[in-house]
């Protein structure tokens, strides 16, 4: 019985981590859909979200709901600016140039913010916005933080689903993702849709950043790298460009990571994720939900 309780608790931990990955993976998958670009800077927007929330809480003592709103708005703005400044001039450039630019933006954000005058490269303790309470069940316990994360993630995933599949903007996004040229001939403003996608994706990453900060209360300017790559892998696993695929992939990666740490060894955690990536790319490059096999 002990083991069962342990497994359930680890599952909850895995879902908690998976929820954060799912939020980041959504941004990756949406940006990849409309621009065919692996936005390496996305993980750093996640980091930016955690830092903005940190400053709003410690310096201004804002109530938590205001922290969520302002952080999401600011990371959305950051995503918009990055797209306008770095990616838009390269709209017609070779794909690799765009990818290298994305790597450049990512490095710039990390090292610019790690300057001693700004955030410094050190770890900072993320403040607790509220007291932790745990609820005991027969076999396992759940904290209010975990419940908050599940609730917020669920609601935002649902809203994104509605946005993409039930609104005019979502329809335009899917059209651009399907064929950019034809979509522009149909009178869709491509630039506007791309900006909109970046804003939505970046604010979701910012949201992920706050939740991550609350759940794992240590933040650092380089904290976005690994979650960024893992979320991208989650997006690939679920089928890149597919909204529900990204969510499922995020949860799978989160669960696997926690289970490998719990039952095998935490040092091989990161290695395992890449073995999964290689297997997915080899066996089914279009991902779990992908129907069209990528022509390679």
């Amino acid at each position, binding site marked *: 019985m002990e083991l069962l309780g342990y497994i359930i608790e680890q599952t909850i931990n895995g879902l908690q981590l998976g929820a954060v990955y799912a939020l980041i993976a959504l941004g990756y998958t949406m940006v990849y859909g409309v621009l*065919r*670009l*692996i936005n390496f800077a996305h993980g750093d927007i996640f980091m930016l979200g955690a830092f903005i929330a940190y400053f709003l809480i410690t310096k201004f003592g804002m109530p938590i709901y205001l922290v969520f709103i302002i952080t999401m708005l600011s990371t959305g703005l950051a995503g918009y600016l990055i797209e306008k400044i*770095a990616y838009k*001039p*390269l709209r017609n*450039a*070779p*794909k*690799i*140039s*765009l*990818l*290298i*630019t994305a*790597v*450049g*933006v*990512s*490095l*710039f954000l*990390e*090292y*610019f913010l*790690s*300057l*001693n005058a700004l955030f410094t490269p050190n770890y900072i303790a993320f403040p607790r916005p509220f007291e932790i309470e745990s609820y005991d069940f027969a076999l396992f316990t759940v904290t209010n933080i975990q419940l908050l994360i599940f609730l917020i993630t669920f609601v935002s995933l649902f809203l994104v689903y509605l946005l993409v599949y039930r609104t005019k903007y979502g329809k335009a996004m899917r059209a651009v993702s399907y064929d950019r040229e034809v979509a522009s001939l149909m009178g869709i403003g491509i630039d506007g849709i791309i900006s909109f996608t970046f804003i939505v994706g970046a604010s979701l990453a910012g949201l992920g950043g706050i939740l991550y900060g609350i759940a794992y209360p240590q933040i650092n300017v380089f904290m976005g790298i690994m979650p960024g*790559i893992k979320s*991208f*892998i989650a997006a*690939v696993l679920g089928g890149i460009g597919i909204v529900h695929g990204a969510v499922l992939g995020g949860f799978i990666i989160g669960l696997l990571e926690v289970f490998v740490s719990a039952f095998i060894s935490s*040092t*091989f955690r*990161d*290695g395992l*994720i*890449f*073995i999964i*990536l*290689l297997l997915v*790319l*080899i066996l089914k*490059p279009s991902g779990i939900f992908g129907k069209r096999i*990528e022509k*390679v």
Partner: protein
Amino acid sequence: MRFFLESKKFLLVSVVVYILLKILFANNFISIYIQQITLFALIVTVASLGLNVIYGYTGQFSLGHAAFYGIGAYTSAYLTKIFGIEGVFSFLPVLLISGVVAGCIGYLIGIPILRLRDDFLAIATLGFGTLVRVILDNSDRFAEVLGGSRGFVGITKITNLELTFFSALFIVLITKNLIYSRYGLFLRSIRDDELASTSIGINTSRMKLMAFSYGCMLAGIGGGLYAHLYTFLHPSNFDILKSIDFLIIVIIGGMGSIRGTIYASIIWVGFIEGLRIVLPVELLDLRWVVIPILLIALMMWKPYGLMAKKIK
């Protein structure tokens, strides 16, 4: 023999450069530190040339080049340690083996991942790089001497001017001949249009695999030389930042330009290490703020590099 005659001018220049370096190195005319940087620049040239064959000539975007550099470094350091090799001539086979090991691993990993196209290939090689990093971090579990995350210490210092210079020279000549052979033509045609290359009967997957393994082998040789120059290895020396270093060199030098890669490696290493001398410590952190901006600007201004021969 013919190809040595064909690059007469290049050989002549190399001899002059070698004599010049020899004079500077003798009697410690320049400080040990600068000598080390000079050798390091040559080593970086070898490894970057490998990436240029993969990316610049064949168009296969790899973000995991430093992993192969690390594999070569660890292999070579391990072999010299267990066999107690100290002489330059007995070191040569070890250097070759470390190159071959890196090349073979490149071959094996290339079979599945080279089927992928540009950005997926990038993420797969990035993943492989991280995997190698994880393995190196835990390497003390397989063999205590590798040091794991504490780093590999106490490697014999074997790399000297002659060894580095002549290995680099030899590799440049071989690579030049590869590029101007029939196979080099195939590689360039794959870069320009893979589909068209297939349709004229080039076995593109075999060619890509060959170029990738060759490039990884060069990275491995570079790594072997590096291990015995600095006598200390740490897994963090072979992470993504290092791969980006090589990438920047290839881009600055120009995709598909051997001469460009040589100049760019020397200028780049000189620039990075020079800033360490010129700048005070507080401003040193600014390097990695300026470099990405440089990279982005270069991508907007000249996406194929400063010395690329042909602009598509």
